[in-house]
Every structure is written in structure tokens, then in C-alpha cells.
């Protein structure tokens, strides 16, 4: 583990450096507070620090305050080293953001023990961050395919549409539904069905650009947004994705399963201002048309001359009829 040592006095620095190296730390040693703060504030800077109290440029408590100002970085565990022993000095040191306080000259064993305490706290922080990230992932992703879940993909679509309108750009919305997926489950079993969904997700993600979004919309339905694309590109890419999905059977534990997908495609620029729900209704109608046309094809949602009536908008979504 990396540790920063900041001490203007060369003997102290050498002694600390050697003691820490012997204890297995990767040491960075600096001779003033400014250098210490700069080092600790680097994104990948050391997370353990031994700081002399009195230093030129910036003292130990000053370094602690600088480091604590930064909220977006991992926690840095800081120990102040000093010959100050008065109670008010200890209080001032800890108030500045230091985690611990050690009187000089230090005892090597005590110093190492206190650093082990610091390491335990940093390990605990790492585990908490890992758990939080895991929970964040679970809350935003589909458990089977690891794609964005329905709530998130709709939110991303909403944001993307707002941006596209503001910048007068086009977003292509693709709603796909695996063809005859019920038959896959009935013929090959649900385990193979899950494998097909996972592989479909993988093929979708590999077919789009890094800044496009792919989400699982429902059982065997997928929503893809091709961001900032012109209509011709949207059409071509939709067709390419469809072909990629159907190109090879999916190798499952129950054997190879041939698959295909039908897509409804909507190019946002052609639709003016409509809500996400309204646009999804339109693209779903296009998907329904693709199914009706024999499946394994892409149908584009075409705006009607007149705005859709409230009755039509409130109609039962086509996906419920498939």
C-alpha cells in the first residue's frame, strides 16, 4: 500500500521512510506541506499519510484541511506527527481533519500498529463502496442480461430526446421483440430461453456505438436508442442489428437455437414534440407491423398527417396483443 510521508526534517523523513519500507509500504516522501497536499489530492494519490505538524509552506493541519475539502476522492487516513503534547494541540489537530496523532520521537511498533488501524478503516471504506456500487448496479440493470432495466432505459431515452430536441438532432428509437420466443422456451426449456436472452443482449450491445443505449424493456423485448444519428444511419443500423441477431443460432446448453428479431423504428426528428410514452406507443405500433409483415424485419413508424386522437393513444399497447 502507498503511504505519503511529509516532514521537512531530513533525519525524521529518512527514519520514517525506512521504517515504512521495512513494514512493506510503498513510500512517497516530501519535504513540505504544499507538496504533501498536492500528492494526496491526486486522483490516484496515496491513501495513508504521516504528516509532520510544523512544516514550511503549509503545516500538517493545513494539509488535512486541504485534503478534506475534496469530497470526490477516496478517503485519506492521515496521522499527524508532532512533539506538541498539549490537549488543545491534540484537539486542533483532530479538528483539522486528522484521524490520529502520534508524538515524536515515535516508537516504530506503535506507529505500525496505528497504521494498521488506518488500513482497516480504508479497507472498510473500500468494502462499503463496493457494496454501494453493487447495489447501484442491481437497481439500474436487468439481473439476467445486465442491460439497463426498463426504468433506466426509459429515463435515458427521455434525457436523450430532450438533448436531441435542444440540439436539433435525431435519436433513433428501436423496439425489438424476439420472434417466437415462447416456442424457444417450450421447445428448448427456460434455461435455454435465458441463454438466448443473454446472447441477444450481448449481440445488441456489440452492434451499437459506445454512446448508444440498450435496455431490456420486457420479457423478450429490448429497447435501443441510437443517439445523435441521422435518419439514414438509423435505418441502416437497425437493419444491421437485425441481421446480426439472426446471423447465427445461439449456442445453448440445449443445443443451437436459431433466433430472429422484429424491430419497430422511430426517428425522433420526424415526430416533433411528443412524450416518451407517446413515442414508445408509436414505435410499438411499428413493431406490431413488423410482426404482422412476417417477422424478422424492421418497420419504421411514420407520422400521421393528423395528430393521433386521445382514444388511439390510450389504446392497449400492441405488445400486450403479441
Amino acid at each position, binding site marked *: 500500500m502507498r503511504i505519503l510521508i511529509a516532514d521537512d*526534517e531530513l533525519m*525524521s523523513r*529518512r*527514519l520514517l521512510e*525506512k*521504517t515504512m519500507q521495512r513494514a512493506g509500504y510503498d513510500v512517497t516522501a516530501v519535504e513540505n506541506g504544499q507538496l504533501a497536499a498536492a500528492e494526496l489530492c491526486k486522483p490516484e494519490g496515496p491513501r495513508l499519510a504521516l504528516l509532520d505538524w510544523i512544516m514550511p509552506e503549509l503545516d500538517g493541519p493545513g494539509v488535512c484541511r486541504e485534503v478534506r475539502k475534496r469530497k470526490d476522492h477516496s478517503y485519506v487516513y492521515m496521522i499527524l506527527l508532532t512533539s506538541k503534547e498539549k490537549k488543545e494541540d491534540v484537539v486542533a489537530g483532530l479538528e483539522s481533519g486528522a484521524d490520529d496523532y502520534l508524538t*515524536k*520521537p515515535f516508537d516504530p511498533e506503535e506507529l505500525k500498529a496505528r497504521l494498521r488501524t488506518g488500513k482497516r478503516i480504508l479497507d472498510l471504506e473500500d468494502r462499503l463502496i463496493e457494496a454501494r456500487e453493487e447495489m447501484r448496479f442491481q437497481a439500474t440493470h436487468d439481473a439476467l442480461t445486465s442491460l439497463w432495466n426498463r426504468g433506466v432505459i426509459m429515463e435515458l431515452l427521455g434525457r436523450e430526446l430532450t438533448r436531441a430536441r435542444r440540439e436539433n438532432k435525431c435519436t433513433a428509437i428501436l423496439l425489438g421483440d424476439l420472434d417466437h420466443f415462447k416456442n424457444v422456451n417450450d421447445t428448448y426449456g427456460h434455461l435455454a430461453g435465458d441463454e438466448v436472452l443473454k446472447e441477444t443482449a450481448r449481440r445488441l450491445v456489440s452492434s451499437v456505438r459506445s454512446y448508444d443505449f440498450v435496455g431490456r424493456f420486457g420479457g423478450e423485448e429490448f429497447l435501443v436508442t441510437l443517439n445523435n444519428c441521422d435518419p439514414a444511419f438509423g435505418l441502416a443500423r437497425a437493419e444491421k442489428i437485425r441481421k446480426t441477431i439472426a446471423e447465427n443460432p445461439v449456442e445453448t446448453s440445449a443445443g443451437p437455437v436459431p433466433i430472429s428479431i422484429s424491430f419497430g423504428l422511430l426517428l425522433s426528428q420526424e415526430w416533433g414534440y411528443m412524450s416518451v410514452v407517446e413515442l414508445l406507443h408509436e414505435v410499438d405500433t411499428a413493431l406490431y407491423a413488423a410482426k404482422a409483415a412476417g417477422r424478422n424485419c424492421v418497420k419504421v413508424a411514420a407520422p400521421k398527417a393528423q395528430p393521433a386522437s386521445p382514444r388511439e393513444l390510450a389504446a392497449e399497447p400492441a405488445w400486450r396483443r403479441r
Partner: protein
Amino acid sequence: MAKNLIDLGELLERTENDRELMKDLLTIFKEEFPQRHQALREAVQSLNATHVALEAHALKGMLSNLAAPEASASVAEIERLGRNNETSRFLESFSRFEAIAKELSRQVEDCMAEVSG
């Protein structure tokens, strides 16, 4: 015979019996101490209490690391006088420290020879 101003046992403990490190520390001390000593002398002569406290503090750190308790205590007293702005007692305390420092420098040489041998 002059008393030992360096507690070799403590220094060994502090360096975890690393003789190379001890040698390093003694070498650094030999190089740094005269400059720090001179800086303190100048601060004392100019009766600048802030500088006296700062220079004495720096020397105290070096002497603590060398496990030289008597010299460290002597310079700690000068630091205290500096912090309290007791300028009238600077020269008296500094002369006491100089006597200790002279003997300490001699003992550092002996210590160096012992560690190197």
C-alpha cells in the same frame, strides 16, 4: 569521563537494529547539525523570538531522532523561551546548549566509528 549524550540502546530500537540506517542518520546529523546550530545562534544573537522558537524546534526534532535526550531537553527549553518571548534568557540557555552540543558532536564521531566498524 563525559556522560553518554546519545542513548545507543534507544537509537538501535528506533532504527529496529538497522545499523545501515543508524549510519545514515548519523551522517545526516553531521551534515545538517552545524547549519541548524548556526541558524539558532544567529536567531539568539538577533533576539528574534519567533526565529529562535522555530530553529530550536527544528533542532529538537533532530536531537530526538538521534536519541540525545539531554541535548533535546536543552534546546526544548530554548524553544519554550522563544515561544514565551523571554529574550533576556536566550544567551544563558544557548551557552548551556552550546556546551552540550560540542560534546555531542564529539560523541557522534565516536558513535559513527563504532557503527561503521
